[in-house]
Structure formats: structure tokens, C-alpha cells
């Protein structure tokens, strides 16, 4: 009785009718209007039995408790730090959650973290008004050393990490780069110049092709090819991100 009006896994836009009939149930990114299910954002249609949802193609990070993310210190307040986290809202790291060390009242907080520092941190609380609290207490949570920061679409993070971290491990192994992927889409990298650019290109490739099957094989082939080119000094990516001056159109 129910009928899909667009093919599963196709791109739909807000207002587009995706299914008819009462058999299907709207979940994320889909709403019911009469006997129709309608998309409420730009995304890929994903039908799972009777459940219809959208995988978003764009949008900011929605903070979730327990997520390990990367954030940038943008302000030092009286009792803690304000941190930018690629979301609609900034987050707060309070003194008591920042370190197990005792911090005396009135101490210079910039000794711990200062403007422009990037932190691997975890979200401990999100209130109904979207106030986000962070903590530095936990394994792997720390201030990051110098490196490159890139931002990827937050909804692509699971694909970038891969099953049990397989995708990101593959990139690390192939390029020798250190890579940390925050759940909020902020990624930190550090490596040799040529290798680091290959790693960035691989991440971008995952971001744009994650919805096409055979992703792992394609990324592997890409990394092999780039490694080979880099070895013989031909990698266009490692040599230059964009090339020199091109002729006028």
C-alpha cells in the first residue's frame, strides 16, 4: 500500500515528497503531511524496512554527550575557557574539568590553555538551551601540538573513521601522518609535507564519495597511486595544491 516516490539512496531536497501511504514511518529529516512523507532537509534517502530517514549532506555539528571532539580555545574566562567546536554554539571548559592539578583561585589560566590552542576534549553535558560542557579528564584528551586543522562534514566522520578505525588507520599507515578525527568534523594532522597533503586529499575524497559503494578499495588505490607518484617526484597533490598561474579563460 505504501509507495516510495523516490529511489532509496537518492538525493532529496526540503519539501520533496519521498513516500506515500501510512505504511512508512518518518524518522530523522522526514515529516508526515497527510498521507505523504516529506523531506525536511537536504540529504540522501535511507529506507530501512518501514523506517524512512535522511542522511544529511550538509550542516553543522550537533553536540552529543560523550562525543570526543576537537575544539579551539577562543576565550579565557574567569573560571574556564570558551571553546569553538564547529557547532552553532561554543562550549565551556571549566577549571575543575580541565586538569587533575589544583588550580589556585586567580591563577593565570593561559598557563594551561591559551587562545588558539586546539584541544582533544569530550562533551560531558548538553543542556536544553544547548549549553555545552567539556572535560579534559579521560584517556587521549589533551592539548594538541602544532599541526594542520581541517574541517569535514560532521556526518561523514563515521565513514572517515571506518569500522573500528580501519579507514583512518589505512591513511595513517600509508602516509605516516598522525591523524586525530573529532566527532565534530574537526581533524588534526601532522606529517611530512608531501604525505600530509596526500592524507588531506584522501580525507576529502572520502567526504565527497562516501555514498558510493567500494569506498575502501578506491581510497586504497588512491593512496597507493599517490605514494608511487610521490616517490618518483610526480605527485601533483604533493607538489602543489592548485598549480601556478593558468591561462585566461
Amino acid at each position, binding site marked *: 500500500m505504501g509507495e516510495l516516490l523516490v529511489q532509496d539512496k537518492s538525493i532529496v*531536497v526540503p519539501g520533496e515528497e519521498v513516500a506515500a501511504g501510512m505504511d512508512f514511518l518518518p524518522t530523522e529529516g522526514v515529516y508526515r503531511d497527510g498521507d505523504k512523507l516529506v523531506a525536511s532537509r537536504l540529504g540522501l534517502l535511507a529506507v530501512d524496512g518501514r523506517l524512512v530517514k535522511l542522511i544529511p549532506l550538509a550542516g553543522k555539528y550537533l553536540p552529543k554527550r560523550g562525543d570526543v571532539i576537537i575544539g579551539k580555545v577562543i576565550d579565557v574566562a574567569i573560571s574556564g575557557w570558551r571553546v569553538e567546536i564547529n557547532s552553532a554554539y561554543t562550549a565551556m571548559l571549566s577549571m575543575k574539568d580541565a586538569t587533575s592539578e589544583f588550580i589556585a583561585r586567580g591563577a593565570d589560566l593561559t598557563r594551561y590553555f591559551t587562545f588558539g590552542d586546539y584541544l582533544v576534549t569530550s562533551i560531558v553535558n548538553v543542556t536544553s538551551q544547548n549549553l555545552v560542557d567539556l572535560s579534559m579528564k579521560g584517556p587521549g584528551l589533551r592539548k594538541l601540538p602544532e599541526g594542520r586543522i581541517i574541517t569535514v562534514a560532521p556526518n561523514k566522520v563515521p565513514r572517515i573513521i571506518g569500522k573500528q578505525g580501519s579507514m583512518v588507520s589505512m591513511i595513517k599507515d600509508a602516509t605516516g601522518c598522525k591523524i586525530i578525527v573529532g566527532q565534530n568534523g574537526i581533524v588534526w594532522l601532522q606529517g611530512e609535507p608531501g604525505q600530509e597533503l596526500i592524507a588531506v586529499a584522501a580525507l576529502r575524497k572520502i567526504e565527497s564519495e562516501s555514498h558510493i559503494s567500494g569506498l575502501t578499495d578506491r581510497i586504497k588505490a588512491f593512496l597507493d597511486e599517490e605514494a608511487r607518484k610521490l616517490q618518483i617526484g610526480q605527485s601533483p597533490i604533493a607538489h602543489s595544491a592548485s598549480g601556478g598561474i593558468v591561462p585566461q579563460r
Partner: protein
Amino acid sequence: MGYDKRVDGRKPDELRPIVAKAGVIKRADGSAMFQIGNTVAYAAVYGPRDMFPRFLQNPQRGTLRVRYNMMPFSGAGDRVKPGGSRRSKEISMVTEKALLPVLNLEDFPNAVVDVFIELPQTDAGTRCAGICAASIALADAGLSMKDMVSSVSVGKVGSMIAVDLNYAEESYEEGDVADIPVAFIPRTGHVSLLQMDGLIDKESLKRALEMGRKACARIYEIQKKALKERFASSVEVNSTDGNNK
């Protein structure tokens, strides 16, 4: 006497040629270009993000803030002085109201979604082009929306009821002219922008609005296509790429 043939040869219900593209401004969270005839609008969306000054924040829901602006060299005739005018302020306000009904901003209390509309080239219908571009940009930014918004001007030139008046028609002098910018929410057919200046009788107004609704349905398809192409193009290119390897 009367206006029985349009200056550019279009049929009464025919739109000028339209080009729409999503994702044209890299630094924005969402963006679009919408060209109709010789009117070109860019729109960029930033947010939801922290709202300043703080006293403007709404703890119940996110705020939509629109700024409509004509570039100094965009108009036929004199240079447009930068810095906004009463006209651009009013258009910013009605554009906000045209877009707001489709946006779900409940999840973003205190935050703001900024929409910046810029016109590098104008030939009538600028607020409508701006709304069309902004609607694509909002969807491109991944915001939760019940629907898109599509907009066009309708009106009466002499005795002819027509859609998408160009500048020459807006300034037609041999008879009455009514210029009516409208915006429709395509699914419901509800009107979220309605302004008018000029003279028109009630019966003609009804017919003009009906014509506008049909035209907006066509515009919606173009907006939809622009969004799909933005993501589909990378899919196609890359998948053939993948097959080669």
C-alpha cells in the same frame, strides 16, 4: 490601445531564462546564485551561529536575519551608494518574513542564521531573485526546512496579466502597471511574500496570483535541480574515476 506583445517577445506566463547554482561561495555554510533574465542574485548563509549583540537573542528559537544589498555598480543608471537605504532595509525585512515560515529554528535557541543577499546586476525582480537564491542557500547549508520558497513578480502591464516583469515593463508608461512580488511555499501553495504597487482590479489580481503560483512551481523545480546537481556532479565524476582504477 494596450500592451498585447511583451517587449522581449515572451508569452504572458513565460519566465525569463533562469540559471541557478548551489554552493558557489566556499567560505559560507551554504550559498547559491540565481539569475533570472538580467537580474543576478547571490546568497550566502552563515549559521546557525552565536548571535551578537546578545540582547537580540531569542531563548525560544533561533533567529533568521536577512540583509539584502545592491552592489554599487548593479543598477541601470546612477551608482548605488553603499551602506543601505530605506528600500534595502524594507526588502531585507520582507525577505526574512518570506523565508521564515519554512525554517525549523526551534532547535537553535539564542542562535542566528544570517542570510546575505547581494545583487551584482539588476533588471527588476531583485527581491524575488534574492528569495529564490536564499532558499537554495538555506537548504545547501543543511538547515531543517519544511519546504523551499519560490518567488517571482506578477502583475498587469496595460491590459496584460503577466509574470516576471522586466524593468521595461515595470516602467511602462502607456497604461496602468501593477507590480506584485509574491513568494509561494510550493507544497501548500501558501503565500509568504506579497507586496504590490500600481493599480489593478480584484479579478485581475486573482488571475495574476494564480499565474504566479504556476510560475513558482516551475522555479521550485529549477531550485531543486540546482541542489541535486551540486552533489550529483561530484558523485558522477568520481564514480567514473573509480571505475577507471
